[in-house]
C-alpha cells in the first residue's frame, strides 16, 4: 500500500473528527432544555442561587470562550462531570465499555461469519431451496423490530423454558464458589442479548453477500476460471469470494463503529450495563455532559472504523492502492 494513500486517509479522518467536535459541541447548545434546570432540579431556586450556579459552570462567559475551555479540557482527557452520576464522564463511560464491547462485538462476529456463509451458500445455489430458505430467514430477521425479537426470545427461553436469565451481567446477590462459576453465570447472561443482536444483523450481511456474489458470478473472470478446469469450490473460494467481500468490508466497518455505541434497544431490554443503556439513561435524565461524551466517543469510533475499512480496502483491492 502506498504511504501517501495511508496519510491521506488518516488526515481525512482527523479532519472529520475536528468537524465532529465542533458540531457535537454546538448540537448540545441548541438543544431545547436548560442545563441549570437539570442540575438544580428545583423550580423554586432563588435568582441568586441560579446566578451562582451560572458563574460556577461558566455559563456567563461568551460562547467562544466556553468552546475554548471545552476543547482545552477535552485534550486533558476531561469530558466534564456527569449530572446524574456525579462522577467524571470518562469514568462513567469507562465502566460501561467492556460489557458493550463483549456483547455487541461477539454478536457482530457471529453475525458476520454466519451471514457470509449463508450468503455464499444462497448465491451458489441460487433459486434452490437453500437460497429460498436463507433469503426468507434473512428478510424476516432483518425486518423484525429488535425490541420485539428480544422480548419474544425472553418469553421463550426465560419465561417458558426457564433456561436463561433475563437481565443483567451477572445474577445479583449471587456468591460464586470459583471464578469459573462466575464466568459460567456471565456466559448464561450473555447468550440472549448476543443472540438477539446477531439475529438482527445476520440478515443484512447474508443479503449483501448473496447479492454481491451473484453479481460477481456473472463476471467474465468466473467463466475464465471454470474454463481453466477448476472445480466449483475453488472458483468460489479463490476467484468469486475475494471479489465479493469488498463491499462487505464497508458495511462491516460501519457496523463495527456502532458496536461501541452499543445497541440501545437490546441493552435496555436485557438491562445490559453497556453504553447503549447508559445513553438511554443519560437521555432520560438530561445528563448533557455524559450524553455529549458518549456522542463524541461513538462518532470517533465510527470514523476510526471507516478509516480501518479504507485501509483494509486498500490492502484487499489492488486498484485502490494507486
Amino acid at each position, binding site marked *: 500500500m502506498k504511504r501517501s494513500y495511508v496519510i491521506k486517509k488518516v488526515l481525512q479522518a482527523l479532519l472529520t473528527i475536528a468537524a465532529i467536535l465542533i458540531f457535537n459541541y454546538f448540537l448540545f447548545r441548541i438543544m431545547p432544555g436548560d442545563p441549570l434546570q437539570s442540575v438544580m432540579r428545583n423550580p423554586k431556586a432563588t435568582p441568586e442561587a441560579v446566578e451562582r450556579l451560572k458563574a460556577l459552570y461558566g455559563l456567563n462567559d461568551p460562547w467562544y470562550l466556553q468552546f475554548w475551555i471545552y476543547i482545552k479540557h477535552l485534550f486533558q482527557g476531561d469530558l466534564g462531570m456527569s449530572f446524574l452520576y456525579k462522577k467524571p464522564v470518562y469514568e462513567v463511560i469507562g465502566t460501561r465499555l467492556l460489557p458493550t464491547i463483549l456483547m455487541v462485538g461477539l454478536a457482530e462476529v457471529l453475525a458476520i461469519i454466519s451471514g457470509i456463509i449463508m450468503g455464499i451458500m444462497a448465491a451458489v445455489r441460487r433459486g434452490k431451496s437453500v437460497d429460498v430458505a436463507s433469503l426468507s430467514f434473512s428478510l424476516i430477521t432483518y425486518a423484525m423490530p429488535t425490541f420485539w425479537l428480544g422480548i419474544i426470545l425472553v418469553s421463550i427461553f426465560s419465561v417458558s423454558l426457564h433456561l436463561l436469565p433475563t437481565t443483567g451481567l451477572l445474577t445479583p446477590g449471587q456468591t460464586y464458589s470459583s471464578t469459573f462459576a462466575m464466568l459460567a453465570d456471565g456466559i448464561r447472561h450473555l447468550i440472549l442479548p448476543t443472540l438477539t443482536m446477531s439475529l438482527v444483523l445476520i440478515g443484512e450481511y447474508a443479503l449483501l453477500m448473496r447479492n454481491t456474489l451473484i453479481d460477481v458470478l*456473472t*463476471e*467474465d*473472470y468466473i*467463466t*475464465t*476460471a*471454470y*474454463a*481453466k*478446469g*477448476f*472445480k466449483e469450490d475453488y472458483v468460489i473460494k*479463490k*476467484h468469486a469470494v*475475494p*471479489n465479493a467481500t*469488498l463491499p462487505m468490508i464497508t458495511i462491516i466497518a460501519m457496523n463495527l463503529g456502532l458496536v461501541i455505541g452499543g445497541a440501545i434497544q437490546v441493552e435496555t431490554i436485557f438491562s445490559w450495563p453497556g453504553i447503549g443503556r447508559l445513553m438511554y439513561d443519560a437521555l432520560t435524565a438530561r445528563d448533557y455532559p455524559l450524553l455529549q461524551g458518549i456522542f463524541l466517543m461513538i462518532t470517533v469510533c465510527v470514523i476510526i472504523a471507516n478509516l480501518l475499512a479504507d485501509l483494509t480496502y486498500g490492502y*484487499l*483491492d*489492488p*486498484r485502490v492502492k*494507486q
Partner: protein
Amino acid sequence: MELLEVRNLKTYFKTQKGMVKAVDDVSCSLSYGKVLGLVGESGCGKTTTALSIANLLPPEGRIVGGEVLLEGEDLMGLSAGKLRKKRWKEVSIVFQGAMNALNPVMKVGLQIAEVLMLHDKLTYEQAMIRTKELFKLVEIDEERVNQYPHEFSGGMKQRAMIAMALACNPKIIIGDEPTTALDVMVQAQILNLLEKLKNEINMGLILITHDLSVLGEICDDVAVMYAGKIVEKGKVEDIFENHQHPYTYKLMNAFPNIYGERKLSDSIPGNPPNLLEPPSGCRFHPRCEFADERCKTKEPMLAEVGHRHFAACHYGGVFK
C-alpha cells in the same frame, strides 16, 4: 482423424419467454495447425458455439444435441471430472474483451501459474518460472507477473490472456474476438503472435470475430453464421471471392474496401432475427432481397457448391 469435429450441435437457452435456439444444428471441423474463422453478426451464436465446445454454458443454457469430438473422443459423453481435466489442458479460450476476463484482485502471474499448478502439477516456484517464460513469449516484461490486471494496458491484458491460453500447450485455442476493442497496431501484433505460435506448436485455432479483415489475414477456413446456423462455410478464398450465400455477399459488401470509392458501405437492412421465433423457411429471407415464396416456406440445407465449400441457399450462387 480431425483435431476437432463439431457435429449437429444444438445449444438452447431456457428463458421465461421460451426456448432460444442460440445454436441450431451447427457442424464444423478443424485440423491440426489450421485456423477456422467463425464470423457473423452479434448474437448469431458464435460465442455460444465456442462455449459449448468446452461445455461452459451459463445455467440457462443446455446442449440438447450433437457431438463435439476432440481427436475422436466425444466431450459431451465425459463425466464432469474428466471434462474438467480436458479444459485448458486441451482446449483453452482467449475471451472476448480481456478487460474482464482477468480477475481484478489476483496478480496476473498467479492467474497463469494456478492453471499450471492444476493441470501440469507444477509447484508454485516452477509455475512462476514457466509463467515468466510465457510472458516473454507474448512480449510482456516478465517483472510484471506480480502486477494486477489494472496495471496492464488493454493490449497487454489481451497478450496475458494469450499467454494464459498457451500455458498448458493446448491442442486447440478458441479466440473469442481476441482483438476487438484494441487499436489496429496492437491488433496486428496479436494476430501475428497467434499465427506464429500456431505454426510453432501445430495447434488448431478457432477465431471468432465479426471483423472480416482479421478473417482474411489468418484463417484457412471460414464458417459464416446467421441466426444460430451456419449458412456458408469453406476455404477462406472461396468465402471472400466466390461466396454463394446472399448473407455472405451482404456481409462482404458491408465492409469498406480500401481500394474502392470512398463511400459509406452498404448495410444489411433489418435487424438480426429473434431467436425465440426464428423466421420460417430460410432464416435470412426477411432481409434478403432475392428471397421468394420458396425461401419463406422451405428451409435450405447446406449443400456442397464447390470443393469443400458449402452454402445453405436455394439459389446458391445464382442470385448475383
